[in-house]
């Protein structure tokens, strides 16, 4: 018995990429980072982190004595201190955009983490355990997929009530299905690989096989999916906030800023609509490009996703 264990352990060390393999692969392309997406994303992240220091005004209070609907600084009738204009309460649009970046990025990242966590866990359980566990998980996935994600999110947000953390959980609960599907498929083929088989023969528990051998080998796919999910989640948050079931006012979110600006669109107050939308577009564009880059580096099989 000991002999078998000895041999399988050696074979295992040679065959399983494991955590060390994952680390090697990550280090290998750290030297060739994508310039364009990072050039867009890094400033947004810095602005979001240091919003308190950067923003010229309080994002939720009107500028004392300022006119409402003042245009940006280059237009006639501008307020020189409110560089990108003011909104319907005389609040500084620039400061609201800056704090809005924080909301968008937190919801985008955390929503993706929640979705990825739920989906990856369920995908691994379904793929590795198989049988009725697989059946139950995949039927739930199918049912969840039957509803358009946004409609489902609107329904949940209406029932749960608006707050940033509720939105994160809701978007996580809506967008996990794709992870479950993809990861399950990968685990099904991993389960047939030698290093997993050997590890099972050597008597490793299911938990150990999953944590040591399955999880590190599906993390790349999960990362690729995550890079694709972030943009979707950011747009979904903006959509919910636009409809008034997302991040509640007076908290500045890009989606609710668009909703605030909508009524003034008819008289041509374009800055209330154009700036928040441009912010959403740039961030999502950057995450998409980052996702494409990751996909090519990490997993050529996922190129057609």
């Amino acid at each position: 018995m000991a002999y078998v264990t000895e041999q399988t352990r050696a074979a295992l060390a040679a065959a399983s990429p494991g955590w060390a393999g994952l680390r090697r692969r990550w280090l290998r392309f750290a030297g060739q980072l994508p310039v364009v997406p990072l050039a867009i994303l890094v400033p947004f992240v810095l602005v979001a982190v240091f919003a308190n220091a950067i923003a010229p005004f309080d994002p939720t209070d009107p500028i004392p004595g300022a006119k409402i609907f003042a245009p940006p600084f280059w237009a006639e009738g501008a307020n020189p201190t409110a560089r990108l204009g003011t909104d319907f309460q005389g609040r500084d649009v620039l400061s609201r955009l800056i704090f809005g970046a924080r909301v968008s990025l937190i919801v985008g990242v955390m929503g993706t983490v929640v979705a990825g966590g739920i989906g990856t866990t369920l995908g691994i359980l379904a793929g590795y355990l198989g049988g009725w566990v697989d059946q139950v998980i995949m039927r739930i996935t199918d049912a969840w997929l039957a509803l358009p994600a946004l409609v489902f999110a609107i329904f949940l947000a209406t029932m749960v009530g608006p707050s940033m953390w509720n939105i994160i959980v809701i978007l996580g609960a809506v967008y996990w299905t794709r992870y479950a599907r993809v990861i399950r498929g990968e685990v099904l083929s991993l389960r047939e690989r030698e290093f997993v088989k050997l590890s099972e023969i050597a008597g490793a528990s299911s938990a150990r096989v999953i944590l040591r051998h399955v999880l590190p080998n599906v993390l790349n796919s999960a990362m690729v999916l995550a890079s694709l999910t972030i943009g979707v989640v950011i747009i979904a948050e903006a959509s919910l906030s636009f409809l008034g079931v997302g991040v509640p006012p007076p908290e500045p979110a890009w989606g609710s800023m668009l909703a605030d600006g909508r009524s003034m669109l008819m008289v041509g107050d374009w800055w209330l609509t154009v700036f928040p939308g441009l912010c959403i577009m740039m961030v999502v564009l950057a995450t998409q490009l980052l996702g494409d880059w990751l996909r090519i580096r990490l997993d050529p099989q996922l190129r057609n996703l």
Partner: protein
Amino acid sequence: MARFIIRRTLYALVTLLILSLTIFMVIRLTGDPVTLLAEPGAHAEDLDRIRAEWGLDRSWPVQYLTFAKNVFTGDLGKSFNYDMPVSTLYFQRLPNSLELALAATLISFLIGIPAGLISAVKVNSVWDNTGKVIALFGLAVPGFWLGLVMILVFSVWLGWLPTSGQGSWQHLIMPAVALGWYFAASLLRLTRSSMLEVLRSEYIKLARLKGLPGYVVIAVHAFKNALIPVLTLAGVNLVVMINAAVIIEVIFAWPGIGRLLYEGIFQRDFPLVQGVVMEAGIMIVVINLTIDILYAYIDPRIRLTR
């Protein structure tokens, strides 16, 4: 074939069962539904009366069975605000949503399919790169923001198109573009990858070896087969567009299903929200089942593998 249909139908029923159970549980886990039904600050006796009236005083399994029975007999409850059955409201709005969704599908075809085709035929050319940029912006630019910007440019500044409402093709064009935008990008990507795959296949090589002109190979032999997955996606997209065009319909004041859902949210009309969501789920499950069965009918391999 019969076995395939039976199995798929059972799956669809299970899906609907889980879906209805999810909706049922969400409503009861996120708070007392009575508070959604009553005026704020209602007396305890009033709450009890409403609870009895809606059957909310019974046990959860009994409540669920009633709910499921109602759903399967087509009774999705009654909207407070309209004082009408939800399914009646849903089917009243359906033609409007269908009109918008068909127009959006047409636009996504006009952009997505030719661009995807050219990208695939001229891989890595300027055309392909233009296609990639379109696909990227299709995903990164939210359709509802595109709609707002179009209103600004074409209605407010240029005065060419009406800002909202329904009636003529001028009313239809902006919401259709805003809604079809995202789907154009996804059709573009699928057309490109599907076309590339077909172009690599043996029978295309044979057609080329026979000496057929390039455009005949592409138009007659390759495109026809590459179109199959594209049309399937378009079918699924159409159903999604009918049910999920919430923001676009709100922005353009389009009297469709999405706007009905929005009205339900704002008037705290929770039977309406629940009913519209359930109806959307049913419609999508039924359409998916139909597509699955049609596929199996056309392609016998599917019957055997699944």
